[in-house]
Structures are given as C-alpha cells and as structure tokens.
C-alpha cells in the first residue's frame, strides 16, 4: 500500500506533461494540422519559462520572490514561446502550404536545439560547476499545494499533492472535450479538420480556425514543458532531460482516439508506465533488467498503435483531412 501511495502521485507527475501535450495536439489535429513539432514546442515552452524566471530570480539578488510575479513571468514567457512556435508552424503550413510532416519534424529539431542552446547559455551565465540550472525558489511557488493537503492522509496524497499546473492541465482537457462535443465552435473545428472544402462552402473561415486551434494547441502543449521543469523537476533544467515525452504525447492522441477527456486517464496511465521500472523489484544482481523495464511505455505504445489501427468505427478515425493543406482554388 505504501508503494502504491507513492506510485500514484509520481505517475500523475509524469502524466501531466503528457496530458498537456496530448490535449494541445488534439486541438491542433482536430483542425487537420498534424503538428509533429509538439516535442519541440514543449521544449521551447519549458526553456522560455526557465529564461523568464532565471532573469527574474537573478534581478532580485537574493531578495525573496514576489509570489504573483514568480508565477506570472515564467507562465507568460512560456506561453509566448510556444505561441511563436505555433505561429511559425501555421505560417509555413497554412499560409505557405508547406508539407506538414517536414515542417513539424524540422520544428521539433529546432525546438530541442533551441532549448539546449539557451539552457547551455544560462548554465554558462550562472557559473556553476554542475551542468544544470536550479530555480528552486520559483519552483516552490509552482509546486505549492493546498495547505491542508498534507493533513488529508491518503486522499491528500493521491488527489491534492500537486501544483496548480496539474489541475490546470486536467481542467484544460475537460474544457477542450466540452468545446469539441457541445459547442458550435467545436462543430466548426471538426468540420475544418474533416473536410475543409465543406467547411469553406458553409462559410467557415478555414484559415482562421486552423491558425487559432494550432496556436492554442501549441500554447497548451508548451505548458507541459513548463510543468515538467518547474514542478516535476523542482525547477532544475538540464539539457535533454525532458527526453521523448513529446513523442509519447503524440502517440497518446491516437490512443485516446482524439478525445481530450480520455486523455486525462491515459496520460496518468502512461506516466505510470514511464516510472514502473522503479517499482519492479529486480534485486541488486540484475540491474540490467531495469533498463529493459524502461522500455515498457514504448512497447505499450507500439501495441496500442497496432490495436488502434484495427478499429473500424468511423467516429474513431483520425480527422479525414489530417496532414493535408487546404487551398480553395485547387482543382
């Protein structure tokens, strides 16, 4: 039971970045844009927040942080970074009609490089011996829990032990699910992703929908990066630490059949798989088995992709025009 109690919060902590990435990519893909740049966007979202809070912390020369600014500055920096990434992707694919796969992959390469470059620069600036930046003061605000959470026993540990971004992630997923299912905006967005010609003929501004949903999707995904650094990693940035979570988030989109509310459970499940190796006893004699257990989330992803590709229901298919650019006068 003790192991389980400590497992759940860690699984959730691992799952929240995936949830942000997955929700963001669902919003994007519903407009017919297959944004493979999400892993890069999450890096940019993370490093932008780190840059903001690094300069804020340093500008104070050791004085205590203002709680409001300590949260707002990294948050806005992160949103701005992923906003710009989203605009770049839209400008290339929607306005210039560049190939979506190539653009997305290039943006992932760019985003990861961008993160590592500025991460490295900040590390140089801070003159530390370790190749990391520790923003523990800012992180304290991000990972602050409700005051009574620690007194609520197992309930508090499982449900209340997270920083505000975790709840924001769940709320975002629920709101996105509601918008897609119940509102006219959601209906229009689905039409744009399924058949842009139809949406266009019905008087829906296809370009606007693609831009807004893709940029919004990027901003949501970028928060996943921010959550990872500021809350999960306790404010410690080290290059490449975020790893391949962005790709897992994209795989989750298929796993959840483009439903943001399913994404909440799915991301926690995958977060759990990600750290499962720590909880499988191997004994000191066979540490190499741990390395094999680390493969679990990827193997599950492969299995899931195989299973989901066998689904036949029309409602469970990807948006019909996913990955295709739209040009009204194309014949």
């Amino acid at each position, binding site marked *: 039971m003790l192991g389980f109690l400590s497992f759940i919060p860690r699984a959730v902590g691992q799952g929240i970045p995936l949830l942000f990435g997955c929700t963001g990519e669902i919003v994007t893909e519903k407009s017919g844009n297959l944004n493979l740049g999400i892993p890069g966007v999450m890096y940019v979202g993370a490093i932008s927040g780190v840059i903001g809070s690094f300069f804020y912390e340093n500008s104070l020369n050791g004085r205590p942080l203002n709680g409001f600014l300590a949260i707002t500055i990294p948050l806005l920096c992160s949103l701005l970074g992923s906003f710009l990434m989203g605009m770049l992707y839209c400008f290339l694919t929607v306005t210039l009609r560049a190939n979506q796969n190539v653009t997305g992959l290039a943006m992932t390469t760019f985003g990861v490089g961008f993160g590592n470059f500025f991460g490295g620069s900040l590390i140089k600036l801070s003159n530390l011996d370790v190749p990391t930046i520790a923003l523990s003061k800012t992180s304290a605000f991000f990972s602050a829990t409700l005051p009574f959470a620690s007194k609520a026993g197992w309930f508090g540990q499982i449900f209340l032990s997270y920083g505000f971004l975790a709840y924001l992630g769940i709320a975002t997923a629920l709101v996105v699910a509601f918008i897609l299912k*119940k*509102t*006219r905006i959601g*209906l*229009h967005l*689905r*039409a744009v992703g*399924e*058949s842009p*010609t*139809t*949406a*266009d*003929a*019905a*008087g*829906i501004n296809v370009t606007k929908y693609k831009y807004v949903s893709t940029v919004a999707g990027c901003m949501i995904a970028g928060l996943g990066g921010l959550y990872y650094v500021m809350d999960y990693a306790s404010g410690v940035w080290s290059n490449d630490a975020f790893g391949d979570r962005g790709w897992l988030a994209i795989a989750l989109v298929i796993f959840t059949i483009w439903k943001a509310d399913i994404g909440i459970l799915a991301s926690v499940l995958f977060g759990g798989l990600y750290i499962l190796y720590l909880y499988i006893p191997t004994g000191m004699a066979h540490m190499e088995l741990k390395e094999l257990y680390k493969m679990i989330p990827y193997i599950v992803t492969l299995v899931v992709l195989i299973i989901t590709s066998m689904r036949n229901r*029309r*409602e469970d*298919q990807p948006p*019909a025009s996913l990955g295709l650019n739209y040009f*009204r*006068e194309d*014949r």
Partner: protein
Amino acid sequence: MSDSKAAVSMRNITKTFGQGVIANKDVNLDINKGEILSLLGENGSGKTTLMNMLSGIYYPDSGEIFIDSKPVSIRSPKDAYDLGIGMVHQHFKLVDVLSAAQNIVLGLPGKLDLKSACARIREICDRYGFDVDPDKKIYNMSVSEKQTVEIVKVLYRGADILILDEPTAVLTPQETQKLFDVMRNMKKDGKSLVIITHKLNEVQEISDKVAILRQGEYIGTLITKDTNPQEMTDMMVGHKVELNIERPEPLNSALRIRVKGLNVVNEEGIKKLTDVSFDIYSGEILGIAGISGCGQKELLESIAGLQKVESGSVVYIDDDGTEKELIGMDPLKIKELGVTLSFVPEDRLGMGLVGNMDISDNMMLRSFRDSHGIFTDRKSPHDRAERIVKLLNVDTPGIETPVRRLSGGNVQKVLVGREIYQRPKVLMTAYVVRGLDINSSYTIYELINSQKVAGAAVIFVGEDLDVLLQISDKVMVLCDGHVNAILDGRTADKSEVGLLMTSLKGEVTD
C-alpha cells in the same frame, strides 16, 4: 413566363485560371423567379465555374452580378448565402462523421441547438416532400440521401436561388424522378432553380428554359418546349453531331473467354457474385446492365486478376485454341501469359491513372516494363501521349500537365486512349462515359466500336440503358450478383431489362 422578373443577372462575366486558361468569357445569363433553367454545355465549357462564381467559390476577373437588379459582390460562400444563393455541388460538401442535422447547421452563427434545428429540418422536409432523418450519420447514407441533405442545407439557410450541379449523375431513374418532384415543388414556391446537366432528356423533362455554353462562352437561351435534342446538341457542340450509335455485325467471332460458376465474397464478407457463368466472343460487345453495386465491379476485377475469388473459373481461349486459366493470376502474370487485357475501371483517378503525373508518364505506367536496360524509355510514351491527345481532342494545356488538373471528360479520354492503344484482345470498360458530355461520349462509343471491329472481345458495363441496348450485341443483366438473363441486344426491350435489373427471376410475381 415572360412576366417573371430576373432574380439573378450576370453580365459580361470573365474568369481565367492561371496559365491563361479561360473558363468563362463575357457570359451573360438571366435566372428568373419561379423558373427552372438548365445550363447545358460540354465538359469544360465553364458551367460549373460560372455557377461557382454565383456561390462565392470563385470571384470573377471582370463583369457584374445583379441580384433583384441590385449590383452585388460575392466574395465568399457566406456572401452567397446572405444573398439567398445556395449551390449543391457535384461532389457533395458534407462531413462524413457528422449527422445530417450537424451538417445542415454547419457554419451558422449562434448557440448550437440541435433540437430546434431538427424541428426546422422536419418542417422543410414536409413542405417540399423530402425524406431525411436528421440524426443519421452521413457515412451511413446513400448517394441520394446525401444529396437530399445538401438541398435541405441550402433551403435551411433560406435560399431562394438554388443551383444543382449535375444532380442526377449519381441517381437511379426512380431517385431522379423523386428529385424532379421536389424541384417542381420548389418552383411552385417561387424559387429560382438552375440545373447543370448534360442529359438532354432531363433538360426537356424538368426545365423551362435552357442556356447553352460552349468553350466558356454564352451561346444563347432557348425555351425548352420549343426546341429539340438535335438543336441543343448542335448549339452545344458548334457543329452537327450524329446522335446514332453504330452497331456493326460481329465478324469472325470466336469464343474468347469462358466464365464458369464464379463466386466472389468481398472484404466485408458479403456475397457479391453467385454462380456467374457466361461466354464472351471476339468481335462482340457484351453489355452488362444492373443497378450499381450489384457485382459489376467484382466481375470485371475477377477477370482482370484484381479480385480474390471463392470458386469458379475464367478461361481465356487464344486464337489458336489454347486455353489459359486466369483465376489466381495477378495482372502482371496475365500479361506474361500473352493475354492483352485492357481495363477501364470505374474509379479513374484511383485505379486507372495517377493524378499527380502528367499524361506521358501515365502512358508509361502501361509500358515501362517493356523497355530493356536500367533506364526507362520516355520517348515512346511521350509520342503516344501526343497522338492520343490529338486523336481524342483532349483539352489540355500540354502533355506535361498533371492529369488531375484536367476535367473529368478529358481524364477519361486519356485513360480510354491508353487502354485502347494496347490493341487489346479483351477490353473491359466500366461506366466509361460517366460524367462525359454528348460529344465526348460518342467519340468513346466510336472508339469502343472500332476495337470490336478490330476483333476485341468487349465487356461494356453501363448505366444508360438506351445506350447499352444500342451498342451491345448481347446484354447480360446482373441482379444482386446473379446472372438474371442474357438477352440479344438487337431485340431486347428496355422495360424488360429494367425489370430484370430489379427483381431476380423466379421472384417475379404476376
């Protein structure tokens, strides 16, 4: 209808597409209230482009549009809806995974309230005699149901001017009659209707006036009841056209293919062909009649080596009498056996041609295996492409134009041209003139006849019974995957064939 006022007037409309392709040139057109106007013209004569400018898909380069005598500028489909213009496109603009009601309210402002939308949809249906289930998903619908949803969608937005682009091309005769009834109801209600079609009998049946376009130019408007098919055709084509299909007597016919006990089950496990047996002779055209989807596609694909067969045999008999079994072969093996078999499939750009490749490269798809060495031979396909373009009057900016940019009729000409160029022993065609105008259709009929005279065994799957009975030596009627009858094309009666198409022999009561 001389007292009716013009609902829409188009004046001196010109539209060009990149590379100087003129789609419309100085077109003048009036659409009156409470009137059905047919827009007639060959493929590529600019009918759809002209109407797309009314519905806001394209914007004219020059010219003016008046609605109720007021000049207007239609820059988007939304502008068109606001002016009361609605168009039902040839390729339906519906989202498959959404329901009828969701599709109908798509793009409208305000809160999403499907319940009251459904109520209004039912009201519209009752008024004009439609039959639509608002909650049904589009992907579960037949073509005719989809079309109904499109029309309701337009009416839901309060359109007074309706444009229907080739609405009957995909409908059965019964569905067409139903559509015409609805159109008459709308006309009575004071709406203006434009129907684009190239079936002359439909023009005569439904429309009050007929406007004719030729190569993007407006030729004139006729009162339907004062004109006749010959006059319309001549105006449309610009010269006299012979509206007869020849049927030369078969010469030296010999058994070419013997199909015996063919059974086919498709991927979904539905039985598509049951015990199909028949013979095809060289120098003969075997017409296949049947409601679409009752096994024609599977039959042709079985012979071509593209369809998995449960049981049965397809034997090819060569000129010297040797017999070759074709079942279990793929198209390449069939070719290696020395059987020249040409197939013009129903799905032109899906199975027949590669849309992104140009005409000459599409020719190469058939011949690239013939060249020796590691380099492909590009010259002879290029020459062949040039010859086909010239021979069949393919309207294209050049040999290097990607096929998908050509209009439907020209795509079909390229495909038929390529297949016939093989000098096939067996020629199979499925709905070869679907979507083609009269002139192109007759060119294709002539081509098929020329292959017959040259000794090919021809299988002709068609939907227009009049044509089928004029061109075929024998007519085989398929009904739900069964061979219902094989009749002599010279004596078969249209209504008899129609009945055989819809009810299995033995089930015919009375």
